[in-house]
């Protein structure tokens, strides 16, 4: 069982000049094995902080995150991470980037090579293994990042706005790829995003967060990710349910933003 329990997690940052920022306030939810959970919210709602706590890069002020009943205390290879951009190693080729995890673990080269070839095939970068990563487009680089993460065979994949820096068309294609990889590998995925559409389309469960202090506003259970394999993405996104949910969440986030403006203004 590779479930994740996020248990009463609070995070308070103390600012250098005094003063405190309540990035997260008493956040609790569970993620079942193989579930794809998307986390959405306006900037400053603590969604990236939450992901960094799950990844083990930050220790929460109170509460804890448990993975298979073990408390998370630091980063580990069972939790793979896909970053927005710029987290690839530009001194390595595509193949060397993907092979990074297995190579660090000292896995046999031949086995790793085979696995890397296979993964590059899946993400559509079959003939790009020898290329330096900086010669690739933004979308291709994110495919490499996905493959690099998968090559390490993590139980959980944490995605921090992985498609955030891509143009709209590439982004849509990549959403299809993420969905496909999730279905094929059955990994547990937490996806942080600021795109309502992306959160709805990919998440089985969607957590909407509110800022100041960062907290859970609402949790949705969604059918769209399941439909994603049979229906075309465009049809799903144009469907009445989808549009209705999208508008509902958009206005919710819009209100949050207004509230922030009101507080500061």
């Amino acid at each position, binding site marked *: 069982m590779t479930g994740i329990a996020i248990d009463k997690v609070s995070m308070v940052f103390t600012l250098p000049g005094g003063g405190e920022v309540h990035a997260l306030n008493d956040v609790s939810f569970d993620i079942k094995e193989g579930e794809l959970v998307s986390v959405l919210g306006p900037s400053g709602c603590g969604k990236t902080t939450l992901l960094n706590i799950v*990844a*083990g*890069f930050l220790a929460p002020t109170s509460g804890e995150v448990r993975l298979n009943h073990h408390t998370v205390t*630091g*980063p*580990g*290879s069972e*939790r*793979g*991470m896909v*970053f*927005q951009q*710029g*987290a*690839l*190693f*530009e*001194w390595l080729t595509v193949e060397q980037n993907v092979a*990074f*995890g297995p190579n*660090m*673990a000292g896995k046999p080269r031949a086995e790793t090579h085979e696995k890397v070839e296979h993964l590059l095939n899946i993400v559509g970068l079959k003939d790009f293994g020898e290329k*330096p990563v*900086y010669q690739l487009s933004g979308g291709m680089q994110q495919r490499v990042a996905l493959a*690099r*993460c998968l090559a*390490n065979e*993590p139980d959980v994949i*944490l995605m921090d706005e992985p498609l955030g820096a891509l143009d709209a068309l590439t982004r849509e294609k990549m959403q299809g790829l993420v969905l496909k990889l999730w279905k094929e590998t059955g990994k547990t995925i937490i996806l942080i995003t600021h795109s309502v559409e992306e959160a709805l389309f990919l998440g089985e469960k969607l957590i909407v967060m509110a800022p100041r202090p960062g907290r859970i506003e609402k949790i949705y259970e969604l059918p769209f990710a399941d439909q994603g394999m049979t229906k075309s993405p465009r049809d799903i996104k144009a469907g009445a349910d989808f549009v209705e949910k999208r508008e509902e969440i958009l206005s919710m986030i819009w209100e949050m933003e207004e509230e922030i403006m009101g507080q500061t203004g």
Partner: protein
Amino acid sequence: MAEKKEPSEAAIWLGLADNTFTRQKTVKFGDASAVNSGRFYSILIVCGLIMLWVLSSRLGLVKEFYWPTVGGTIDRVILLVTEGFRNISLWEHVGISVFRVLTGVLCGALVGIPLGFAMGLSSTARGLFDPIVEFMRPIPPLALIPLIILWFGIDETAKIFLLFLASLFIMTIAARSGVSSVRISKVHAAYSLGASKMQILRHVILPNALPEIFTGLRTSMGVCWGTVVAAELVAADRGVGSMIMIAKNFLQTDTVVIGIIIIGIIGYVIEIIMRYLERWLIPWKGKG
């Protein structure tokens, strides 16, 4: 509408006419890429200066004490190449200077890179060395010459030690800033891919710092080349710097001028080699 006459290839190469792309621009003043090579004027000025030199030599306009004649300089070059300067061949003078620079930079890098890494990675090392590095950084290496002569005399150790110091602080600062420039997401990515601290040092922090280390090496080479010549002016019996200083004492203006030209050429060649090496060894520079 009247057909405009296309300028010839030669005119474009010479910079007398703009290329097609620039000609399409309506805003040129303030757009640096619209300024062409102006090669014609480069050729003009170089030829002009040479002509002026030839003319003044022919007419004896300038005393040889101030500036050598063309013929005298050519004779002197031949003499220097065939017989050397004061029983030491020209190659030895040049060779010893280059050797001092390379040794100094190498020693500076061998100590400075680990030191910079330590300062970038550990609070203790940073606390210990920061005052020393920050204090030494603005001091021109030449200001250390008197002290180094007092300590080491004027033998080879003194010069190499001076160059070592000149490159040490440049290399330390370059390596430290290379370490600090690593994007935290790369380090995080490596940790979540299961890398150990040593593996992160070797496979993430080191390659990430290489471009800045190399820039440090290039700067050190330049500074050390300048420093070695100056140090040789003060105290040495061999080396390009000493050659022009001794020549001055014998009022051999032509040797002085030739020495200066050699210094310029070698400095330029070092820079070119370093740039070439950089492109070859660190093709990812600036692409992160």
